[in-house]
């Protein structure tokens, strides 16, 4: 099997959990949907592209920030500038019937290193690499302001692991691979959505967040450089 391996770094990140509207809680690693979204953004895709993902990583610390959030009360609120500083002849006034703001706590990860494997059709793989090499804008993962530095991208060969090996990073390990007697934190993380009646309906994947140092369960994969791979499908 062939896969694209990405080593990413983010100074800060918040992979916000859905419905965490009083405090912006973050997942400990970017959920599949977020990673999938970044790849789609790289490709400027306008439809879903099928792929398999493996997400691992670690961070130095977790911190709290205070951030202003904008709440839209109506679906048809018209576009408006969020930041008014520097706009000439500033006559703009918010429509308080359509929008309100509130400062809320945001949980953020600091110093995030990620190891991501993407398995996708060869042609798409080529496009992703071209996008990385020739991209005109910055990339981010999670929030727009949390920039991503791509430290390495490499095509690697992946095969089944046949010895005992410990996790080098924390990882999402999908339910079907997980050894349930092993200590882990269960999550249901989003993968992709369909729009039903104008609302995103998410397909979710049951995973365990397994701490590094744990022995990898049987049936997982390893790449040519000895990095473990836990594809979610």
């Amino acid at each position, binding site marked *: 099997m062939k896969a694209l391996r990405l080593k990413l770094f983010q100074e800060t990140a918040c992979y916000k959990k859905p419905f965490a509207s009083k405090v912006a809680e973050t997942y400990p690693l970017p959920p599949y949907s977020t990673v999938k979204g970044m790849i789609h953004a790289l490709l400027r895709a306008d439809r879903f592209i099928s792929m398999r993902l493996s997400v691992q990583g670690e961070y130095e610390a977790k911190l709290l920030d205070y951030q202003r959030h904008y709440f839209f009360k109506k679906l048809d609120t018209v576009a408006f500038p969020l930041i008014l500083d520097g706009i000439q002849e500033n006559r703009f006034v918010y429509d308080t019937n359509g929008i309100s703001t509130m400062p809320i706590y945001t949980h953020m990860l600091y110093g995030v290193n990620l190891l991501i494997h993407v398995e996708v059709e060869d042609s798409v793989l080529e496009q992703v690499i071209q996008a990385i090499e020739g991209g005109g804008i910055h990339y981010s993962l999670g929030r727009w302001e949390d920039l991503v530095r791509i430290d390495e991208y490499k095509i690697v060969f992946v095969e089944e692991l046949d010895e*005992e090996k*410990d996790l080098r990073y924390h990882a999402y390990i999908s339910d079907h691979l997980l*050894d349930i*007697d*092993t*200590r*882990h934190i269960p999550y249901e993380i989003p993968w992709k959505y369909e729009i039903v009646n104008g609302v995103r309906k998410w397909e979710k994947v049951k995973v365990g967040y397994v701490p590094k*140092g*744990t*022995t990898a369960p049987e049936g997982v994969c390893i790449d040519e450089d000895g990095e473990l791979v836990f594809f979610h499908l």
Partner: protein
Amino acid sequence: MRMESLYFSIYKPGGRKTTMFYAKSETKEAIREHTDRLLDNWELLRDCYGERFVRMNERMWELLRLAIEYHDIGKANTAFQNKIRRAIQEEVLETDCDVDVPHNYLSVGLVPFNKLNLTKEETRLLTHAIGYHHERDKRPDKEAIRLVLESDLYLQREKIVKHMNLPVVEKLSFRFVDHLLRRYTIHDGEAFWDYVLIKGLLQRIDHAASAHLPVESYTDQHVGVYVRHYMKRQSFQLNDLQRFTASHTNKNVVVIAQTGMGKTEAALLWIDRDKAFFTLPLRVSINAIYERIRHQMGCEAVGLLHSTSAFYLAERGEENWEVIKQQSQQLSMKLLLTTVDQILKFPFYYRGFEKELAGMANAKVVIDEIQAYDPKIAAMLIKSLEMIKKVGGQFMIMTATLPTLYLDELKRRNIVDEDCTVFGKFIDNENHRHRIQFHDREITEGIEDFIKAARSAQVLVIVNTVRRGIELYEHLSDMDADIPVYLLHSQFTQEDRQGLERRIKEFNMAKEKGIWITTQLVEASIDIDFDYLFTEMSPLDSLFQRLGRCYRRRSIQGEQCNIHIFTQNVSGVPSVYDEHLVRESICLLEPYDGKILDERSKVELVEKLYERERLKGTAFLQEFEDALSMFDHLDPYELNKQEAQRKLRDIQTIPVIPRRIYDRIADLIEEYRRCRNGKERIGLRMGVEKKTISVHRFLAEKYVSERLPKPFEHIYIIDVEYDFDQENGKGTGIQFDKSLPAFY
């Protein structure tokens, strides 16, 4: 000593002589030898109680046997062997690997799971039973475990296999360390209770084998037989209560029976041929029952375990008190008399709770006087009964009054149910013992009445606080009324208090005339029968216990009231008694003013008082519910055993010695430190302990100046006067308002 010889008869020496792997330094035992001792105990347990364990089927016994076989195999590591070798002064072995890793973790790494034909769940049970047969503060460290297994134990594989005569792993795997990190909890459902048994029984067997004692002793002596013999000798007939318990030995039993109905015998008849734990709130009552069973009934199969039981046994002149103590601590006695804090604190899920809980699985548990515990402890008891039922133990609740709140909770949790529980209520309503009279006054205004009554009778005055007691006593003494007046409360030295307790009984027996002023101290355990009781109001359960000290064994004749209850300006509210409970008690009891209060009414009134509805908004109900909720949602394995014990014991009091008394016994402490003879040391130690007074911490703080030297550093010296004349038994005891003179 009898136990020793019994032990050797079941121990078969192994006799394999290969490379030496030591298990213990004290006895220089080999791992195989020690393991064989465990196997003998495994057999003993299965042979004696196999039927009795509801959860233990063939497969479970086999798992337990495997756990035993492999539990100490990790001790073969060189670092551990050298530790023992140094201790017994043998040549140490050369090694590159001297990392110190707890052997219980290493043992798991050598188990050849793939050869044992286990299911996934069985593998997990075995892993956790072996991996945690010692509880450590340190979590397993995979890297250290890997190092020792790979670079030491694995290399010695051949030798270990030969020594242990057991197969070990061919290929090391360290996945078990991850598995150990996810511990069993109540959320694992039925598997959790299986784990409790395998691990708990492994620990019981291991500890017994290490102490060279059988895991179960006196298995062929039956308490029920002794009590029947005893009753026959005394030509006692079984009464209704006793017939009831004797005919329901295979059920859980809840009985409400008034004092003096032979409850102890009833419980022993229910225990019959089984192993049992008999719990009571007060140590003195436990000692008294021990006395009765051990010496009057002549039953040897009885142990005693509470915080001062060793002292008691030694002082009592029990020849082999050390053995009794050990057997009691190992829960191996056929019948163990104990306090709830010793054996029923497993709802705290402290590290190692499995041992005590598994000890209940083949036994019956008697909880006597459940109404005497405060609501937090009662909550713990209810939770522990729930757990006991899960592991297959049986229980009996015996009480004079059962608060409805507790009964409801027992039912709600399905701890008592129609199928396996029987209820009984045994009240002697023929004889009327008490006629009560309310006084809408303060008890200090009743002094004239006491004196009048005391001219021709024995008068007992019970107040709610020590302070009020001293106040009354001084008042009466000043009046010079030519009537003997005595005072008894908890603030005397242990020795003087014992003297006073003896004196009040003698006074009562000799039918002397006079007044005894006491606190609720006499509510339980002191067997006296006075002619009049003058008391401050208290909650009904406590009040009725007080009534039990007056006309205890007599019927009342005529129209005169023998009980006088004072309801105004009652002391100890709310510091001792809940205000709401006292008020409700008055309301419930008022209709009986001037009338006979019969035994049935007493039970019914207490039931009413402790209905959930009536308790709404009280601290009592709040405490009970908070405690239950805490036990239901506790994080397991957070506490260690001592911490759990501390949470239970009354840590509000500290032992103190008044300065003047200390000056008289200072030599004793010096003597103790020089003395090397075990028995004499105990004597000296008790000599010091009996001069202490248990005082509330917040009260003592202001007056305490220093601690006693080691090893009595838990005792403080208090700089206040102490007033007691041992000759005539008079005095107020500790006097907080009288500090020592500045230049004392």
